[in-house]
């Protein structure tokens, strides 16, 4: 008894002396550690929880009755926008049903700056490739205009390349929450971060199957692991996970934890991009927001959490369905769904919406845009702030431009094998830019043939001689002194420049010694152009051209008239815009708006214009350039399906190093360049190499062809002149009278002195004058 008492005493002594302090110390350390963890957690959760890549969007697409469309490009557009074909009339957003004569689809909701558009079901009826009518299927009302949502074209990823769309717990339907809980943590709302029952059950299951079949981690543990810890399986890591879970549970409400978890979880892979969070996953797998997910779809997503790629419907539909049904059964066991709901959901096939292999869309345009964006935001901000960046890009035009360029270059190589080079870096190259001349909107940009082979943007970075494509600016300068009917010399002359002789030559030999200004431009006659330039004065030309926004230097040499000074193709395209825009030069606009993740506008850009020439001169220039297509160097356009009025200019440089074509209507302007980066000859002209690409592009874009032409401004008049003298034509006496436009204050005063005795009559009048004098 005494011995026992002594033992008890010793025990209590030791207990108080050693064990209790040790335990208290351990508890203290644990508490301190938890306190430390709580600071870490708070720091992470109170700040920006995720890096959300900024998204770049195209412009919205406008449709209206009477508009011609390219059905192929239009259908591709709808597919890229996530509309999926169904065999019935569309009842859910994103569904599409079509036949040869109509398309019915249920529009997605969308937000663009300042506007929210709620999706409605619509029907577009076609008469061949023309939109006959647009009808709201809910109301039966005919719509005069329909706007399709902008298309996502690029994401600014961080190093992890994670796609994520955040959702709040209030947006998540109850059946989605139940599905996730059934799949991952049934007692989530009752445990305190650890689930001993779950752990025991997992141990039992794993022992029974002699393999790891089940994990015992709660949602909170998974969150702690994913958010703060490495995936390494070590005892220390597990201990940390445990403390962290307990701390998180103390610090946050259950719904807060669940919301973070639902936005955090990894749910699959889209090529090199990780799909994170249920918000992104519901679009990736089912093409709709999480709030619209059905029970079966919710169970499918929840089933993916355990092994997103193993159970992916894109990899194995059967395996995915089995896993989904397990989740459904678990939900039923918990009493979260009824017997009837289970019976309906179980046999349903798994149908994922599908996704296109993600390639960088409009890569050169995106590089051009990125240059502008990086002046506003750091790369880190772009990859983490979740900005929405709206652009002027039209993806249908972009695709048409890419296709036309590839087809054109392939065709050139086939027609002349000397142009074919095996090395992709040295291949024949081309570039396209498409703009809207009035506003400066850049609709499409193709800076080269193959972006993966060469990222050099030949539209914005190349400097090439424009050749005859520069001539319109010379002729514009000439309009102060000359008229389209003025006669220019086409005789060969020698000019002295810096002590050296320069003798320009025509592209092909010509017999005419004199030509009208209109003819000289239409047929791109070099000698007449130089004659004009010399009469107008090179300094005057430079002074005119300097208003058109070229950043490359122009020197006062006569060869300037023939486009011997290098220009940047984008700037050349821009310089043509005033001709199509009443003399107004617009700044090329690619970036329109930047919105933050709360849809607050952070940056906004509008068209910016300045007058560089008069509307009258612009109109006359368009008329002159229309002659290039009607009976000049671009007359082959008519044989390529271009039946609407076009103003255009071809360009070919010395030794056939560059081929150009710039063409426009009141609605659209496109510039094409073809050549080798190293300046090797392409052995053909702008009308043979670049023009067919332009024609191919325009034929693919009927929606941009109104067939209209420019209004004649009040300061322009029309007169009939003699085609030989350029003076007012005399009825019945001048053999080839033609109608010509003139500036109202620059109309020819004299009538033809070549034909109809005009000379003798003039002499009599002169004699009478002399007599009176």
């Amino acid at each position, binding site marked *: 008894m005494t011995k026992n008492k002594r033992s008890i005493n010793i025990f209590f002594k030791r207990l108080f002396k050693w064990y209790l302090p040790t335990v208290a110390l351990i508890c203290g350390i644990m508490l301190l550690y938890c306190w430390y963890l709580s600071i870490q957690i708070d720091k992470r959760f109170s700040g920006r929880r995720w890096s959300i890549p900024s998204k770049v969007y195209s412009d919205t697409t*406008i449709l*209206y*009755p*009477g*508009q011609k469309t390219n059905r192929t490009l239009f259908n591709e557009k709808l597919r890229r926008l996530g509309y999926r074909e169904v065999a019935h009339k569309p009842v859910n957003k994103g569904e599409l049903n079509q036949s040869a004569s109509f398309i019915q689809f249920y529009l997605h909701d969308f937000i663009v*700056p*300042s*506007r929210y558009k709620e999706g409605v079901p619509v029907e577009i009826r076609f008469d061949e490739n023309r939109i006959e009518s647009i009808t709201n299927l809910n109301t039966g009302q005919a719509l*005069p*205009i329909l706007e399709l949502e902008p298309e996502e074209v690029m994401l600014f990823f961080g190093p992890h390349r994670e796609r994520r769309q955040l959702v709040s717990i209030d947006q998540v339907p109850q059946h989605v929450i139940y599905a996730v809980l059934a799949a991952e943590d049934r007692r989530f709302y009752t445990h305190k971060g650890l689930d001993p029952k779950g752990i025991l059950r997992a141990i039992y299951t794993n022992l029974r199957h002699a393999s790891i079949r089940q994990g015992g981690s709660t949602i909170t543990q998974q969150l702690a692991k994913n958010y703060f810890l490495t995936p390494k399986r070590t005892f220390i890591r597990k201990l940390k996970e445990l403390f962290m879970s307990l701390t998180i549970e103390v610090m946050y409400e259950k719904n807060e934890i669940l919301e973070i978890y639902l936005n955090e979880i990894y749910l699959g892979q889209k090529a090199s991009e990780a799909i994170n969070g249920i918000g992104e996953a519901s679009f990736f797998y089912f093409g709709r927001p999480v709030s619209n997910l059905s029970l079966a779809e919710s169970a499918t997503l929840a089933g993916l959490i355990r092994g997103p790629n193993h159970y992916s419907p894109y990899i194995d539909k059967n395996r995915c369905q089995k896993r989904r049904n397990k989740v459904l059964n678990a939900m039923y066991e918990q009493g979260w769904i009824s017997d009837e709901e289970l019976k309906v959901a179980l046999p349903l096939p798994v149908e994922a919406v599908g996704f296109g292999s993600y390639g960088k869309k409009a890569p050169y345009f995106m590089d051009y845009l990125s240059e502008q964006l990086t002046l506003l935001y750091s790369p880190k901000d772009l990859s983490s702030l979740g900005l929405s960046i709206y652009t002027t890009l039209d993806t249908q035009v972009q695709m048409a431009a890419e296709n036309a360029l590839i087809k054109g270059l392939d065709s050139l190589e086939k027609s002349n094998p000397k142009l074919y080079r095996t090395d992709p870096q040295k291949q024949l190259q081309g570039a396209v830019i498409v703009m*809207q001349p*009035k*506003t400066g*909107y850049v609709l499409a940009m193709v800076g080269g043939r193959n972006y993966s082979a060469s990222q050099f943007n030949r539209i914005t970075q190349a400097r090439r001689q424009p050749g005859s494509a520069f001539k319109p600016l010379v002729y514009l300068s000439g309009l102060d002194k000359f008229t389209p009917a003025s006669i220019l010399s086409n005789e060969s002359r020698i000019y002295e420049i810096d002590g050296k002789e320069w003798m320009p030559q025509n592209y092909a030999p010509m017999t005419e010694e004199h030509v009208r200004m209109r003819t000289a431009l239409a047929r791109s006659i070099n000698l007449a152009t130089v004659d004009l330039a010399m009469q107008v004065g090179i300094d005057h030309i430079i002074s005119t051209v300097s208003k058109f926004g070229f950043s490359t230097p122009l020197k006062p040499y006569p060869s300037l008239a023939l486009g011997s000074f290098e220009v940047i193709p984008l700037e050349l395209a821009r310089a043509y815009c005033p001709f199509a*825009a*009443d003399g*107004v030069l617009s700044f090329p606009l690619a970036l*329109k708006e930047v919105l933050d993740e709360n849809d607050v*506008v952070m940056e*906004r850009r*509008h*068209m*910016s*214009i*300045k*007058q560089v020439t008069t*509307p009258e001169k612009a109109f006359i220039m368009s*008329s002159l350039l229309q002659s290039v297509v009607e009976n000049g160097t671009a007359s082959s356009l008519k044989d390529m399906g271009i039946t609407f*009025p076009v103003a255009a200019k071809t360009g070919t440089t010395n030794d056939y190093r560059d081929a150009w074509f710039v063409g426009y209507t*009141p*609605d659209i302007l496109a510039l094409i360049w073809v050549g080798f980066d190293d300046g090797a000859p392409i052995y053909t002209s702008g009308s043979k190499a670049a023009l067919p690409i332009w024609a191919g592009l325009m034929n693919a874009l009927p929606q941009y062809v*109104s*067939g*209209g*032409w*420019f*209004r*004649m401004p*009040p300061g322009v*008049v*029309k*007169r*009939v002149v003699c085609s030989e003298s350029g003076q*007012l*034509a*005399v*009825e*019945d*006496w001048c053999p080839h*009278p033609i*109608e010509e436009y003139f500036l109202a204050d620059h109309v020819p005063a004299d*009538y*033809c002195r070549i034909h*109809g*005795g*005009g000379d003798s*009559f003039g002499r*009599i009048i002169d004699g*009478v004058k002399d*007599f009176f004098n």
Partner: protein
Amino acid sequence: MEGSLMGLKIFLIRVKMVIVTCIFGFSVVLSGCAPTIMKSSPEGYRGTSQEAGEFEDNTEKPVLSPRALAALQLTEQGRMFLEKNQPDNAIGILERALNLNPNNGRNYYYLAEAWLMKWNIGQATEFNRLAEIYLKDDSEWLNRVILQRKRIKEQSQ
């Protein structure tokens, strides 16, 4: 002496009159055979607004083309943004309308209005000038354009 001088003067005047009469008569005869200057065809030959998409035909009541109608919808949206004093939103929409139908002068007018709201006199002046070009045939709108120009001037001072 005086009388003979006088007689010579009268003679010379008569000779001059005869010559002038002859030349005048000859000129009249010649002018009858003189060449006639050819007249150009009436305005509206290739390249007027009819083909530019604003109006489909030019009968008594012009019918708006679907394209022009669609553009007008956007113009109206732009105008509503202006009423709400949201010039940036208005400009965004009006630019789209302009791309759809570059010949609608009201777009330019409203764009000038929007830029005026933003106190950008330069852009407002440019768009006002363009509005005048496109609305010259519409006396009511032309009047508005002129008044707008006055407001722009006032605001610039």
